[in-house]
């Protein structure tokens, strides 16, 4: 029989951390791509597009991530497709992330002086050209710190994927607890691993923020 020593517990948790990291990366990268599309619509000239994206953002920011996970998990299954926790978790976290990133980036875009829009428009640039060459490069500078800060929320968000049976760090902790009956040790380790993942990002985000304030 397998003996659950401290090192076995730690090893299993660290192995599961891989899936937390991978799911976070998927959600963050795909969420960033979708978020960029949402951002373009959110700050566009079309009122209909703007209203639509406001609704989209409100929908994902105004409901619990846990519910979104359930809806994707049970909802996609209704289409007759077998959903793995991987697919459901990736989808839910991607859309959730995209809504938050779009809203963060909107703030950065709106911080760009109006004159920049007018100047580029007077150079006969199209909306996409304005965004691509004038607005986004400037907005990017102020967007980095809050974006890095939000990545911490994404990592913490992946913990909820455990609820739909995705075996990442939190789920592995629950399973190890069931096998060892040492909840204090297991959950302390789980928390510390999350802390080790998140704290450097939080710290880096704060440092970037400080540097930006000096530059201005």
């Amino acid at each position: 029989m397998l003996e659950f020593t401290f090192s076995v517990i730690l090893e299993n948790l660290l192995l599961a951390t891989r899936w937390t990291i991978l799911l976070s990366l998927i959600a963050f990268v795909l969420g960033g791509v979708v978020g960029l599309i949402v951002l373009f619509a959110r700050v566009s000239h079309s009122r209909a597009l703007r209203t639509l994206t406001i609704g989209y953002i409100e929908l994902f920011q105004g409901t619990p991530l846990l519910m979104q996970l359930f809806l994707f998990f049970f909802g996609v299954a209704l289409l007759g497709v077998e959903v793995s926790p991987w697919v459901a978790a990736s989808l839910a976290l991607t859309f959730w992330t995209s809504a938050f990133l779009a809203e963060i980036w909107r703030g950065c875009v709106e911080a760009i002086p109006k004159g920049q829009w007018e100047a580029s428009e007077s150079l006969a640039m199209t909306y996409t050209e304005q965004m691509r060459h004038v607005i986004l490069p400037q907005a990017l500078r102020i967007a980095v710190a809050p974006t890095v800060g939000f990545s911490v929320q994404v990592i913490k968000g992946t913990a909820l994927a455990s609820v739909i049976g995705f075996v990442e760090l939190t789920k592995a902790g629950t399973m190890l607890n069931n096998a060892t009956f040492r909840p204090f040790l297991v959950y302390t380790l789980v928390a510390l691993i999350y802390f080790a993942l998140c704290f450097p990002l939080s710290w880096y985000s704060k440092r970037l923020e400080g540097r930006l304030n000096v530059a201005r």
Partner: protein
Amino acid sequence: MLYQMNFGDLLPYWQVLARGLLFTVVLTLVSTVAGIFVGTAGAWARTFGPKWAGTCVSIYVELIRNTPFIVQLFFIFFGLPAIGVKMGEAEAAFLAMTINLGAYSTEIIRAGIQAVPYGHLEAGSSLAMSRWEIFRHIVLKQAFMKVYPALSSQIVIVMLGSAVVSQISAEDLTYAANYIQSRNFRAFEVYLVVTGIYLALAIALRALLRGIARAVFPKG
């Protein structure tokens, strides 16, 4: 084959939903008040308190802000009993929510306190106000006015996060949804309706917080 939605199967369970909703509302209100109280004390410790207290509070804030709420909840509900601290699922939910919001609001309120100009403190002490009076009447009031929007959105985030307490069987709205779908197998419909309720709750909570701001803070 296309799936037929059926919301009618939810009707017999409306009382379950109502009880869950009530629990979520009470949980949010109580832990908001308690959490802001903790946050105010924490912010005081980090700005006016002794250095050791400030350091302790910083560690608390960073630990909570850099770990998932669900892990904090599991730690309190499953981990603490192992070292002799036992509590029911509702108590654990209240405690976890309070500790969580306490950490976030410490940071938010601290930012507000640091934004109060130093001259205001000097003006207070030249009027022979005690340190406590200065903190209470000059610093805290202005700090809250400044950070109220940030605090409000954090409260909404915490309310939405409270869905997680269903995982330790605290009987909130999400718990009700899980219960109903295990009875009538209408998972998608139940979660859709409950998601709608959460959305309405978020919108109502934001309106309530705006109303409080209008009533408490004078214009300008």
